[in-house]
């Protein structure tokens, strides 16, 4: 008997390794990773593709529902159905038999905990709390039913439940490891389980066999941080990685020349500029309006993006459907008027620092250098400062007057794009009226009234000019040709069975 066991023990590793060889590994070279994998903390372009593959939300945004991969349609996720009971209450029915990576069953208690951990005023989830702050309480009549009760009527609650920040986390495990522990060793109910997470280097995940929506196609899924474009392309060419992201349009030829691979692309969010309105040099709104009029966005789109980025109709997106106003004009370019405004303003030739990360945004540094040159032409003394820690530095260091950023489109609603972009991630002092109007618009159920409120907010935004929108960017990926996979909007890389197969 013992002999049999021994033989079996010897055979077992051989059997599993054969299976592993049969199954596929997928390695993705990305320009940047995050330092936490808590889905409500990793709220950035670089964080969404990571948490999207290890977590699930109650409702899912079905990007694939349109040809462009930008659809805003909602589909069942961890919830099978949802309905409005009254203006303030949304009842959600959970999917039966779903388990987390650690084997624990997903119940309404986990859902309640997920949101209560964000809404706790002492918790570090400042952004997520602002974004989900309309939720008053969560009721759990039974294990599979959750009722969200909001303070005011909430027209976008369903969309918010599809937001990666609302990904469901396991109550018991989270309480056991705590906030910091969870960010390093997360457990979710998504298709891939995080095995290893090394800062600035890689995140390794393995397929979660019990995933409710079909066995994940990749046995191992690795995200590797490769900041430089040339290094990413080289890694793709020599087979180290299967997919790379953030390819500038002028490098596409390098990928098309490779026999192994091809370029796939999708429209993503917009690149914006933030002005520190509280800074003495920038305090005059005429000066900031001048800065905006001096930027030739069409030229940037044509020269830097090969015409494949889009100049937007003010800060709006078609994904908003009835809340989108196509009649609103695009941002204007008028250097003569810009010069006049700047000369009339209080600006006295102070040097403006424009801070940018070297690689985080595609064409970010190049655009910064081009814009600074456009500003010089209208009499503005500006210079580019490159900093790897640009996001935290620019928030704290008051000597930074201008920075680049991308806007919020992860929730396809003006509340995210207009309100969040120009409050939680802006450098706009004295925007209280704007925020108040935004909070009012976000709790207005009638679409026509909401539409009018957002148009008014855009008027305020254009007049106060706390920044501007450059263009709606396109994200280009280098992909091994035999992979059946397509990228989705807002940097989503979905490696679920519905969107990935190896030929």
């Amino acid at each position, binding site marked *: 008997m013992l002999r049999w066991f021994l033989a079996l023990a010897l055979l077992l590793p051989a059997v599993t390794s054969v299976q592993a060889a049969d199954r596929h590994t997928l390695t993705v070279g990305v320009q940047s990773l995050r330092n936490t994998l808590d889905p409500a903390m990793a709220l950035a372009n670089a964080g969404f593709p990571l948490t999207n593959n290890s977590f699930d939300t109650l409702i899912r945004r079905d990007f694939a529902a349109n040809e462009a991969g930008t659809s805003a349609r909602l589909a069942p996720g961890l919830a099978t159905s949802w309905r409005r009971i009254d203006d303030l209450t949304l009842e959600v029915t959970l999917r039966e038999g779903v388990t987390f990576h650690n084997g624990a069953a997903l119940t309404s208690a986990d859902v309640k905990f997920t949101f209560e951990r964000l809404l706790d005023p002492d918790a570090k989830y400042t952004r997520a709390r602002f974004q989900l702050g309309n939720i008053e309480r969560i009721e759990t009549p039974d294990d599979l039913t959750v009722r969200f009760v909001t303070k005011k009527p909430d027209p976008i609650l369903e969309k918010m439940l599809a937001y990666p920040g609302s990904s469901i986390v396991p109550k018991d495990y989270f309480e056991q490891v705590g906030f910091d522990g969870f960010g390093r060793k997360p457990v979710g109910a998504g298709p891939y389980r995080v095995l290893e997470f090394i800062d600035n280097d890689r995140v390794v995940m393995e397929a979660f066999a019990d995933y409710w929506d079909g066995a994940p196609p990749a046995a191992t899924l690795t995200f590797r941080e490769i900041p*430089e474009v*040339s290094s990413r392309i*080289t890694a793709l060419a020599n087979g180290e990685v299967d997919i790379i992201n953030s390819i500038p349009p*002028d*490098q596409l030829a390098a990928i098309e020349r490779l026999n192994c691979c091809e370029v796939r692309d999708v429209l993503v969010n917009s690149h914006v500029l933030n002005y520190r309105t509280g800074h003495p040099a920038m305090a005059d709104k005429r000066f900031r309006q001048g800065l905006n009029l001096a930027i030739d966005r069409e030229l940037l789109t044509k020269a830097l993006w090969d015409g494949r980025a889009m100049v937007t109709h003010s800060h709006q997106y078609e994904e908003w459907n009835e809340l989108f106003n196509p009649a609103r004009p695009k941002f204007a370019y008028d250097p003569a008027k810009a010069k006049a405004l700047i000369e009339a303003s209080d600006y006295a030739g102070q040097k403006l620092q424009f801070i940018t990360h070297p690689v985080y945004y595609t064409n970010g540094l190049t655009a910064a250098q*081009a814009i600074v040159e456009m500003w010089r032409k209208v009499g503005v003394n500006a210079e580019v400062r490159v900093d790897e820690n640009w996001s935290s530095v620019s928030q704290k260091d008051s000597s930074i007057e201008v920075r680049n950023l991308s806007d919020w489109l992860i929730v396809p609603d003006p509340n995210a794009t207009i309100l969040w972009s120009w409050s939680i991630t802006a450098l706009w002092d004295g925007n209280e009226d704007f925020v108040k109007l935004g909070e009012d618009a976000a709790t207005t159920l009638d679409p026509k009234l909401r539409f009018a409120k957002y148009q008014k907010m855009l008027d305020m935004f254009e007049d106060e000019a706390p920044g501007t929108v450059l263009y709606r960017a396109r994200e280009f990926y280098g992909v091994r040709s035999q992979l059946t996979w397509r990228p989705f909007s807002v940097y989503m890389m979905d490696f679920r069975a519905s969107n990935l197969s190896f030929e």
Partner: protein
Amino acid sequence: MSDETLPLRRAERPRRKWLPALPPPVLLAFAVLATMLAAAALAPLLAPYGIAEQQLLSRLRPPALLGGDGAHLLGADHLGRDVLSRLLHALGTTLVIAGAGVLIGVVTGTIAGLISGSAGGWLDHVFMLLVDAQAAVPLTLLALTAVALVGTSPLVLVLIVGIADYDKYARVVRAQVLTVRARTFVEAARALGASPLRVALRHVLPNIVSPLIVLATINLSTVIILESALSFLGVGVQPPHASLGLMLGEARNHLITAWWLAAIPAAAIIVLTMTTAMIGDWLRDRLDPNLAA
């Protein structure tokens, strides 16, 4: 020897002694270096475009010989700036920074070496300790630390590049001082009551000029590389100004599709360092009495 023949002999002597000894490669090196210096000095006149002048629609245009057009003979970079114009300016920046750096190195190194060699005793020990300490710290690390502490500016860059090399001069000067000091004419001067300062300046210094010139010329190439390395790393010359290393650094992301952007400044760096190194080698052969024997 009559007075009439003397001027003739004087005129003949250098030609016989120097010109035949100038091998063609060295002659070429001199010619190339002179051309580069002239081009750098006349950059504002020669450059067809401004250093920061962008024509975004011409970005990544290849050089004329690789399918580009006459508007940008060496092509245009990722912002549509003319590569030829930037190269001319970059040459000037790199040469000025390297030249000033070498000068600082020579001056500080010579002073340190003179004091150390002349004074001897504990002062000598302290100076040599400093020199040894410098040799133990990697140069790039030192430069990065300095930039992190005080920020980037052309002055800081020149100082870093200058101080980076002073130890070499200090060591050579000190050794020379020790040798010269032991010679009889110096002893005679001292016996006549000359102060140590007078001995150092009047008797020792003129005797160490030739090794210093040789060392400085050879080091010029090292300093050019150091400046380029620092600018490549982003802590040297800041955009929109140009130096050869900065141009190389900016071209990094376009290596695969627009390789010439990196190849052009790289070629300039190679030519510049090779010519100065060749001239330095040749000067050493000419001036070093030990090698002449």
